[in-house]
């Protein structure tokens, strides 16, 4: 029976959420097209991940080696190529992330299997695989199939599938030996570091909570800061907030501040001055909260909420807390 593999992404001892979204997709391919799903986890000290994964999928393949301690496409691609050639899965899934973007295109060349990246929908179409990709800033959806091949590689945009819940039964765990590597390696992992600690760079943040004049007073800024912290977002603002020196200039969004393109932009109490809106062109999803139903921000936002921003801040904090 044809197989679908999920390449497990983990970093610094933690499995990343995107993996569980792919498990949902693998289950969907199982139920709709009869593909046999399995997780593939490779690395060093990943046995505990396998135990967890076995609660989600009927089969987990583990490759454990000290050489695999830190992710390098060179070693990971070599191991995966070996697995793909032995197991010949029809579909191999991986998150579209710094991990998947580094690994899968290269694996595609090394293993001579076609790859489609950043897909938002993956389904079987007869014997072939069909994917949907969101292109041109999300304004067009493109459907593609592949030239016939023994296996297809796919990276999936995070958020395209809901994270899976644990399955009822425990799956099997297959320990595979690590194949020998063709040393010397051309890449060497040196370590992690926090990007640009200290100075806030709102233009690099994928998630911004932005406040405007609706914040009313400097005393209220910490409320918004707390919300941003709890959401894992960076606090930004519109010009009047900077003008009043409630936040630093480096947090100002707009043509006279910073131009930003976050994945998610939540505007609280911002009316939507043109210069501000020009600074968030090309952002992902844009949610606006404003008391004024006629505020121009609502014609630019994807989602609108006509409500007092403080009520929403409190409600959000409550929801996160629960």
């Amino acid at each position: 029976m044809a197989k679908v593999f999920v390449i497990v992404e983990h970093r610094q001892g933690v499995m990343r959420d995107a993996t569980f979204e792919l498990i949902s997709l693998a289950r969907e391919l199982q139920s709709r097209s009869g593909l046999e799903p399995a997780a593939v986890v490779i690395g060093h000290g990943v046995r505990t991940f396998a135990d967890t994964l076995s609660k989600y999928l009927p089969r987990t393949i583990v490759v454990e080696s000290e050489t695999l301690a830190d992710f390098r496409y060179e070693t990971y691609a070599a191991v995966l190529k070996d697995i793909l050639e032995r197991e010949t899965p029809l579909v191999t899934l991986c998150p579209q992330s710094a991990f998947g973007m580094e690994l899968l295109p290269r694996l595609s060349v090394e293993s001579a299997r076609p790859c489609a990246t950043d897909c938002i929908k993956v389904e079987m179409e007869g014997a072939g695989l069909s994917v949907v990709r969101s292109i041109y800033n999300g304004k067009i959806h493109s459907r593609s199939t592949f030239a016939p091949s023994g296996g297809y590689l796919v990276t999936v945009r995070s958020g395209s599938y809901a994270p899976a819940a644990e399955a009822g039964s425990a799956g099997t765990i297959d320990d595979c030996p690590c194949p020998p590597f063709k040393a010397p390696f051309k890449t060497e992992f040196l370590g992690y570091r926090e990007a640009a600690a200290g100075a806030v760079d709102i233009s690099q943040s994928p998630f911004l909570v932005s406040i405007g004049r609706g914040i009313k007073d400097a005393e209220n800024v910490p409320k918004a800061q707390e919300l941003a912290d709890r959401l894992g977002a960076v606090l930004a603002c519109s010009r009047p907030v900077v003008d009043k020196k409630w936040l630093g200039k480096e947090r100002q969004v707009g043509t006279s501040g910073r131009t930003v393109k976050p994945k998610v932009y939540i505007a609280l109490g911002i009316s939507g001055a043109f210069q501000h809106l020009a600074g968030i062109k090309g952002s992902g999803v844009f949610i606006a909260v404003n008391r004024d139903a006629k505020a121009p921000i609502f014609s630019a936002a994807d989602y609108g909420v006509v409500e007092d921003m403080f009520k929403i801040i409190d409600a959000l904090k409550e929801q996160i807390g629960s």
Partner: protein
Amino acid sequence: MEILVCVKKVPDTADAEVVLKQDGTGIKEDDLASGINEWDNYAVEEAIRIKETHGGTVTVATIGSADSEDVLRRCLAMGADNAIMIDDASFKGADPYGIARGLCGVAGKGSYDLVLAGAQAGDDGYAMVGPVLAGYLGWPHATLVTSILLEGKTVTVTRELEGGLEEMLRIELPAVLTIQTGINEPRYVSIMGIRKVRAKEIPVLDPAAIGLAPGEIGANANRIKRTGLAVPPAGKEAEMIKGTPAEIARKILDIVKERGGVA
């Protein structure tokens, strides 16, 4: 240090209404502004900065029709030494593998130490050409690069990971690096600057000149086959979320999660 930078002209769709062509094979570009792919612009700037510090030359290459010439001229005005255009109808509709094949041919024509490319393109956004090209060349690669430090025959780079984290790698040259936005502040290119390089010759190569056989590239050779384009349903005005503050907050959190806001 000989550097090749792969660039591409893309339409700007950030704030524009995108309309499909009648036959559904692509989008109407008449009303769209177009220019150098944003990521590529950073790559060109980075290459020029490396050249300014370490010497050498910067060559920019694009696969595209004659209307991509302005993008190459812009790169020359920024400070690139040479530009190469691979202009052939056989590349029309090529997938990332076809494009990488073409660029591999270009890279093979020179003796480059470093190939830079944008991490992804603003149109189809595969983010594949760089690593696939590296695979074809048999060179090491790094994607989403946010800093480059040249040290003899190696480069130390940082890669952007999620949640404000970066990883540091040492890579042997020659290598392919794909550049993330924000790695530098690209210089402004004035029209006067572009005028100064207007007479500079840009060789136009056909696939044969870079060692590609007909049929090796182009839509028929594609491994990813586009079968259809569609405009996703989207309202112009914001979709209003109604309910109690708690209900609204729940919905907002759902949207945030769905759209990858939570790192």
